[in-house]
């Protein structure tokens, strides 16, 4: 019987079988950020241990660092500076590659890793960050871990891993005009639920997935953790190889040729069997928006807030009613035209150059509604520079968006900046949890296009219905 891509990567990295469904896996790349990496590095040092493979370990500042212009080590978040200085000190002491504040390589860990080819097809990559699944888009086995596991990976270049089951989601056909990878991710969450892939390693396949560019694939894989998957992966192909070729940490010369030759085998065999196999029709996917406090609370833009459905079998009635009350919504209410207070474009889900280009195409020549606070945070310093070289920053600013330095920013509320009490935010991020973006903030997840269109309308809006510029 053939093997799935995941099983091939597992076998390639399996140092030993520890019994009971657990394996000892070789870890090829470790990435750290200042919020969870700092404590892992300090704890490692305090235990008198060192990093086994410092040249394969990378550190960035993204979670706590400010994104305001002119930023430095000082943060709006009280005590945030401590995370930055501790991470810097520990990273330099350990001889790790650090993308510090002011470094052109700085940015959100899941944005800078692909853009510098730190992640490669076939590698194992871990990071104490749940959205590490993003990087499976390049054909890597990349997953999020805790800080204690990060210490283990740093000290031994291995992890003791419970082998997950396998799941494949095949998306047949093509996404419609104006329907994005983000909408597909939200569609899958609405369909399969926030625990829909729990215990499973997810492979995305099918025509609609292969048709996505690398940045779209990163967006799709990003939200696998919202499905509670172990991680997600897409078989690497020419699109990925062309993307990686020539980037900073990509193999060069004969190494590149040997690498590409080996990567060509990285796909699930035709007769491989998955524990769960789902088929989705791309034509069923529409622009999406969330209404509640779980990413599974996702519906097409034109639909109304759903009533509790006992047959749905997912939320309890109490959970459903709690979400409605928190969000200030009632069942049956339209989501389109719902007034918003703020709009946010950024995060490891949707802050790459193509995301900013598509949002800018909507914003060009238009103005953000007067009452809306609108913020764009490029995912990396490099994305920001490339966007500025194209003049995208001017389009965002002219429309009324703030244009920030790179980082995770207001995807979550770390005690510094927030959107304010009970503000309603349309956001290109990945989590609509209670108080995620600020005290009792009401977050609606959507694509960058929908965020841009809504910012202009001052209310949740379908980007396909924007009236022409007068």
């Amino acid at each position: 019987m053939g093997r799935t891509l995941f099983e091939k990567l597992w076998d390639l990295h399996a140092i030993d079988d520890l019994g009971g469904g657990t394996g000892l896996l070789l870890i090829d790349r470790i990435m750290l950020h200042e919020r969870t990496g700092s404590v892992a590095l300090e704890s490692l040092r305090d235990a008198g241990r060192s990093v086994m493979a410092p040249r394969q370990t990378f550190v960035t500042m993204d979670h706590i660092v400010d994104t305001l212009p002119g930023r430095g080590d000082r943060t709006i978040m009280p005590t945030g500076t401590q995370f930055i200085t501790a991470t810097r000190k520990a990273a330099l002491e350990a001889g790790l590659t650090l993308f510090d504040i002011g470094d052109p390589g700085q940015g959100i860990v899941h944005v800078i890793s692909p853009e510098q080819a730190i992640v490669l097809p076939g590698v194992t990559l871990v990071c104490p960050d749940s959205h590490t699944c993003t990087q499976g888009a390049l054909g890597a086995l990349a997953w999020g871990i805790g800080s204690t596991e990060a210490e283990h990976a740093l000290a031994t270049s291995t992890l003791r891993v419970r082998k997950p089951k396998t799941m494949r989601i095949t998306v047949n056909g093509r996404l419609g005009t104006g329907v994005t990878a983000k909408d597909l991710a939200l569609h899958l969450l609405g369909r399969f639920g926030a625990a829909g892939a729990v215990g499973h390693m997810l492979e995305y396949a099918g025509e609609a997935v292969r048709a996505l560019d690398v940045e779209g694939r990163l967006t799709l894989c990003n939200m696998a953790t919202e499905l509670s998957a172990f991680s997600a992966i897409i078989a690497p192909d020419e699109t990925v190889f062309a993307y990686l070729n020539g980037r900073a940490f990509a193999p060069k010369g004969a190494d590149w040729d040997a690498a590409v030759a080996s990567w060509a085998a990285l796909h699930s065999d035709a007769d491989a069997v998955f524990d769960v196999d789902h088929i989705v029709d791309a034509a069923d996917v529409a622009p999406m928006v969330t209404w509640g406090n779980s990413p599974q609370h996702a519906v097409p833009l034109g639909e109304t807030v759903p009533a509790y459905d006992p047959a749905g079998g997912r939320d309890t009635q109490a959970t459903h009613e709690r979400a409605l009350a928190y969000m200030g919504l009632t069942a049956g209410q339209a989501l389109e035209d719902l007034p918003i207070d703020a709009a946010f474009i950024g995060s490891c889900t949707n802050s790459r150059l193509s995301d900013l280009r598509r949002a800018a195409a909507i914003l060009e020549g238009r103005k953000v509604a007067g009452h809306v606070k609108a913020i764009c945070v490029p995912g990396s310093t490099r994305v920001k520079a490339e966007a500025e070289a194209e003049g995208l920053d001017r389009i965002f600013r002219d429309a009324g968006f703030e244009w920030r330095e790179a980082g995770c920013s207001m995807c979550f509320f770390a005690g510094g900046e927030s959107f304010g009490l009970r503000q309603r935010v349309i956001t290109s991020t990945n989590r609509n949890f209670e108080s995620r973006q600020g005290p009792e903030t009401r977050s609606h997840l959507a694509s960058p296009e929908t965020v841009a269109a809504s910012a202009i309308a001052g209310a949740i809006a379908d980007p396909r219905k924007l009236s022409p510029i007068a």
Partner: protein
Amino acid sequence: MTSQPFHSLTAHALPLVRDNIDTDAIIPSREMKSVSKKGLADGLFAGWRYTEVGGREPDPAFVMNRPEYRDATILIGGTNFGCGSSREHAAWALAEYGFRAIVAPSFNPIFRGNCVRNGIVPVELPAEAVAALAEAAERLEVVTVDLATQIVSLADGRNWAFAIEREAKEMLFEGLDAIELTFKRADQIAAFRARDRAARPWVYL
């Protein structure tokens, strides 16, 4: 880091059966104030536990603030418990507060791993069993979690078996440090890396 071994625990249980309790709810970002695994218990469930953001005035409506649950060391949760951010601070906060076992219909995988590494037993049981345990917890009946036999039981004799993989069970039962265990295989790991380096030189920077 080794944790306190877990064999069997009979204690009051806190019923908090909400679905998709995320790690932002368990410990909000704003409560992770220092580069430390400690000092997090006060931030546990801060958004629900206190009357205002950043405040410390207990909200009497939140179940954890009821005096009869002050000594609860087992938590009864809902589906997909611990979803969201990988922050181990969630497990550190729960452990520091005193929780040693969490019973829920399902767990987020990263959170579940973080529990095991911090001496908290993740007990997965069907929703009906979790509901029965939550009702017992509401009546302030004690719950027993026995790791050796992998059985959760109530004083009235009702009991439910739960599954846990061997590696996690051993780590919890012995309070083992995974890094020390893996260090015993240093030669095996070095030999594997040397072979792998010859086969995939581009991976080694």
